């Protein structure tokens, strides 16, 4: 393939990935070798020739991997040709396929953004990739590769967001998912992993502590989803013992134009449900909506505020956003709400690797690592429930992957993509400590799930949910500078 020769793969070295271990926050660095049995990252820093050979061989599955390649896979014992035919054949073919997929993904990403960009090559690689994988079956790696390929294709097409048209997934946009599918997937996700509950409970506990002596509480929720977070908050408020009895709770949910889960109607429905639930447990409650314009910028003036109420800003970002304007929307929301001097800002977002990674490729690999861990975590707990996981992947993780890649893509060359937590700190928000109770609750919650999950406390105001050695989700608590707690 003449085109392959023109690319310079040696431009970046994979050894940068190992620097992740030197995280200032302690020993939570990602050891790439622990990540997955499929990949030996350290062995990937091959030279250019090997890569071209690999690409060639990947393109043509019939090619047997010969000598030159073996050197790359030295540290990767399963792949040496003589072990191919042993009992571990199934494992090794699986692993070698996984490795192939990764190589292909990397090649495509590189072709898309590297020094020698070549969109046609990227497209060719992606087409080939998609022939090899399906988002619905196969190993974790295969399904993951399918979604990543999809996402990369979306970038190629310039969609820039989660919607890339109907390709593998049969519709990238969230609106294409039937409501019950979304619900089912949501329920499944909650049951299979602590992702959802971790964020909700940590935020709620912080809120409860912050408003312990208030009579009126007003929460502005960026993305209320089904409102499930507030069910447990209401329960906690109703049963609180110190301070004034059950405060009045007011929730303002943001809704957007258009259809889908954030539309006016859906949010209104959620409001009705919350109202009914509140009534059933005796929680004084009122619900409002705040509509965002088409450009999704948030105007603080459109909120109705009441004197004497404790204002809480709740920002759950770990569920997929389908608009490529999500970034700006979130920024405007956080900026705007900070001007209102909220008592508390709760933020839950995905925790990507250390922001030392610059450049698209580095973050791309980090993203791959991240979602691989997510997939692994789901499988570990529920290895038999493949369909369930596929649904969750399709409804939530796939779009999330697309969104992440879109964000990384748009930010390439701009330096760091910082987390929203960092952003909040930069604009002057004050971190609030995580209490012992909160940390304890998180640990107990994780105890209900697979042992591979862990929680750690970072920077005093942040709890991070991780799977094995990979951080996945972080919940952080802030306050605007001037308010006094």
């Amino acid at each position, binding site marked *: 393939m003449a085109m392959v020769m023109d690319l310079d793969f040696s431009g970046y070295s994979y050894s940068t990935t190992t620097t992740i271990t030197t995280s200032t926050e*302690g*020993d939570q660095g990602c050891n790439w070798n622990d990540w997955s049995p499929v990949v030996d990252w350290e062995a990937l820093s091959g030279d250019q020739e090997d890569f071209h050979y690999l690409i060639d061989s990947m393109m043509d599955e019939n090619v047997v991997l010969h000598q030159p390649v073996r050197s790359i896979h030295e540290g990767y014992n399963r792949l040496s040709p003589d072990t191919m035919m042993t009992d571990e054949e*199934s*494992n090794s073919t*699986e692993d070698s396929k996984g490795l192939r997929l990764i190589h292909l993904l990397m090649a495509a990403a590189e072709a898309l953004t590297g020094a020698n960009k070549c969109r046609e090559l990227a497209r060719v690689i992606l087409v080939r990739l998609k022939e090899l994988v399906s988002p619905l*079956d*196969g*190993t974790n790696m295969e399904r993951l590769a399918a979604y990543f390929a999809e996402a990369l294709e979306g970038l190629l097409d310039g969609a820039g967001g989660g919607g890339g048209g109907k390709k593998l997934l049969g*519709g990238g946009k969230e609106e*294409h*998912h*039937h*409501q*019950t*599918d979304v*619900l*089912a997937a949501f*329920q*499944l996700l*909650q049951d299979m992993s602590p992702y959802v509950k971790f964020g*909700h*409970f940590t935020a*709620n506990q912080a809120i409860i502590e912050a408003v312990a002596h208030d009579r009126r509480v007003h929460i502005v929720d960026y993305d209320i989803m*089904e*409102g*499930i977070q507030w*069910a*447990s908050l*209401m*329960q*906690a408020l109703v*049963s609180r013992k110190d301070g004034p009895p059950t405060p009045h709770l007011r929730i303002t949910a943001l809704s957007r134009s258009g*259809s889908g889960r954030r539309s006016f109607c859906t949010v209104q429905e959620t409001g009705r*449900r919350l109202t*009914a*639930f509140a009534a059933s447990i005796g929680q004084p409650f009122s619900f409002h909506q705040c509509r965002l314009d088409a450009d999704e910028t948030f105007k603080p003036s459109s909120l109705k505020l009441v004197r004497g109420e404790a204002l809480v800003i709740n920002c759950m970002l770990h569920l997929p956003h389908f608009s490529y304007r999500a970034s700006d929307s979130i920024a405007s929301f956080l900026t705007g709400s900070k001007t209102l001097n909220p008592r508390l800002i709760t933020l839950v977002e995905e925790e990507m690797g250390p922001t030392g990674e610059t450049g698209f490729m580095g973050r791309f690999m980090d993203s791959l690592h991240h979602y691989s861990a997510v997939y692994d975590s789901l*499988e570990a*707990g*529920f*290895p*038999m*429930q*493949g*369909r*369930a996981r*596929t*649904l969750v992947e*399709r409804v939530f993780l796939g779009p999330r992957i697309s969104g992440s890649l879109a964000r990384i893509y748009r930010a390439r060359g701009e330096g760091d993509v910082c987390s929203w937590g960092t952003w909040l700190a930069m604009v002057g928000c004050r971190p609030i400590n995580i209490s*012992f*109770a909160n940390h*304890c*609750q998180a640990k*107990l*919650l994780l*105890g*209900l*799930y*697979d*042992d591979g999950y862990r929680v750690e*406390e970072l920077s005093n105001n942040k709890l991070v949910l991780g799977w094995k050695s990979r951080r996945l989700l972080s919940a952080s608590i802030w306050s605007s500078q001037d308010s006094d707690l």
Partner: protein
Amino acid sequence: MFHPKKPSTMNSHERPMCVQGDSGLVLTTDPKPRLRWTVELHERFVDAVTQLGGPDKATPKTIMRVMGVKGLTLYHLKSHLQKFRLGKQPHKEFNDHSLKDASSLELQRNNASSSGMMGRSMNEMQMEVNRRLHEQLEVQRHLQLRIEAQGKYMQTILEKACQTLAGENMASGNYKGMGNHHQSVPEISGMKEFGPLMNFPSLQDLNIYGGDHLELQQSIDRSSIDAFLPNNDTFLMGKKRPNPYNNSNGKGPLIWSDDLRLQELGTAASSLGSQDDPFKADHQIQIAPLSADHRGNDIDSVSDIYETKPILSGEAMADKKFDAASKLERPSPRRAAFSNERMNTVISAGGMPQGRSSPFG
């Protein structure tokens, strides 16, 4: 600079308690010199610990190195660190941390010779530990309530969704191509091999699918997840990971979580209350029994669905028809004929908590 923290602890009959050594450490002058953790020293300790990444990551050795205080030994640091971890309390409450053994407790406080004070200091620490434990129990209790609340809330959503779908299905006569605002057919209703979670009318189709379709199982444990059973498990080869619900017995301190699950089950179950009758007899909610050994590739293990905890019995369920015990005894290897067998042996009548009021109702 190094002043005793609590003047009140200095009784009138006390001799001066502390001398400042050359290294800046304050040692008591009682028979066995003990280290006094003064404010300043403690602050340096805290700084060092923070530098090292927190009390859980710091070790006495590294702290000692970082602090660089002469005369400070590992023993001092060990016990101080332990207390720090326990409570993260200002050291006011733990004046003297040079505990090496029980007897040293006696000399702990300023008034080492006063037995009254000894009792108090031990009590303080004891109280601290107790307080923590108590708090942990509180957190646990609250967590359980909160999870239940969310479960209950989810149930209302699911119920609504069921009704909506049921309504849609009635209206359109079939569940494909629903002409409402949804732009696509729900995958769930479209995929017949899925046991219905929301799409109850499709239960009718379940009769068609015989023993090969494991997905027909409905577990009481999850109204949805259990339905998603793989047709083949080939992609799981070699990846047998411990299942959280498999080792429920090992989770001693979290036994309560089993009850928790039961509550969740309760909500899930009652969410299915709107089903048609005839099918309930056949497609009952089952508690997927836990077989301790998790078979990766066999059909039988598929029945474990969620590998629900064995305690998953009907006890906490308002509906006592489930006989989980019998489930547990069911032999693990269940071959293809399982589904029919299962239908029959299904939690007997237990099935659908028809019209059962929510446990939270």
